């Protein structure tokens, strides 16, 4: 049983030559050095190491991607793409960290709430659901035809360049299709609360 003694109990590791095809669920941290395909859901942290490949829809609390992920990640806390991380898919998490060197293609949805803020505090709903995380060149800010009236002064630099719908903020909110948060009490104001922290240091 010497082989087993090397292993710290409790933490799951998928070694580099292992392929798992199917559904994986669990309540503990998971480190992937091999391949996981299918579906992956954890109540703790997923770590994809540089040798790891995950082709799956992922539901976790935290995800740290240093390897390759193809698929969507939904995290209740945070998703971090490290320098070696490569990902194609959509990210939905309140905190999304993409560091310099990471490669990512897909959508980011950080939801409505800044992390750590409680629901009742949200009096100025965010309308810019997808901050400019992508490395793609953002289109120029929309000419303020329909939204000028609602936009507070000085917010034009934070214009919702990623907004994919029309000028109606309410429509944009609906697109995010978030299940959890109830509708905001006040009518949405364009770009009023673009406070979410996005760490993006993408070098070309």
């Amino acid at each position, binding site marked *: *049983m010497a082989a087993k003694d090397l292993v710290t*109990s409790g933490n799951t590791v998928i*070694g580099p030559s292992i392929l798992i095809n199917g*559904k994986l*669920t*669990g309540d503990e941290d*998971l480190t992937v050095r091999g391949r996981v395909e299918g579906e992956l859901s954890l109540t703790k942290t997923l770590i994809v190491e540089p040798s790891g490949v995950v082709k799956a829809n992922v539901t976790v609390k935290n995800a740290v991607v240093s390897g390759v992920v193809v698929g969507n990640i939904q995290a209740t806390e945070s998703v971090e793409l490290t320098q070696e991380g490569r990902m194609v898919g959509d990210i939905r998490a309140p905190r999304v960290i993409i560091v310099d060197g990471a490669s990512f293609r897909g959508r980011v949805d950080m939801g409505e709430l800044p992390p750590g803020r409680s629901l009742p505090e949200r009096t100025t709903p965010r309308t810019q659901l997808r901050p400019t995380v992508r490395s793609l060149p953002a289109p120029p800010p929309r000419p303020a035809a329909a939204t000028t009236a609602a936009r507070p002064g000085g917010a034009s630099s934070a214009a919702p360049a990623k907004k994919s719908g029309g000028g109606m903020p309410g429509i944009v909110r609906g697109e995010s299709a978030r299940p959890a948060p109830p509708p905001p009490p006040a009518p949405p104001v364009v770009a009023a609360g673009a406070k979410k922290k996005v760490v993006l240091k993408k070098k070309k």
Partner: protein
Amino acid sequence: MANTVIGSSIVIDGEISGDEDLVIQGTVKGKISLRESLFVEGSGVVEADIETQNVEIAGRVTGNIQASDKVELKADCRVVGDVKAPRILIADGASFKGNVDMDVKER
């Protein structure tokens, strides 16, 4: 290192294959095929057909086991299924139901 561990709270439904040792403390359903050793620990539950070189079972396994070298059923294990391997060890205290086949060509 380079050891793969399926922790006790993990449930895998599907197929696992690989070229390294695998330790199962959690639950695996489906199929396991390895070229090295499989360890099913006391907390491990496997409902799968197993194809490996070596297997050591201290937990529960339901399914057929085929090993190219050795199958070891330790005390307190519970195994249901057919076992086929050139060497099969069943320890005192092990619980096992199934066929045993050691009929492997002389090596």
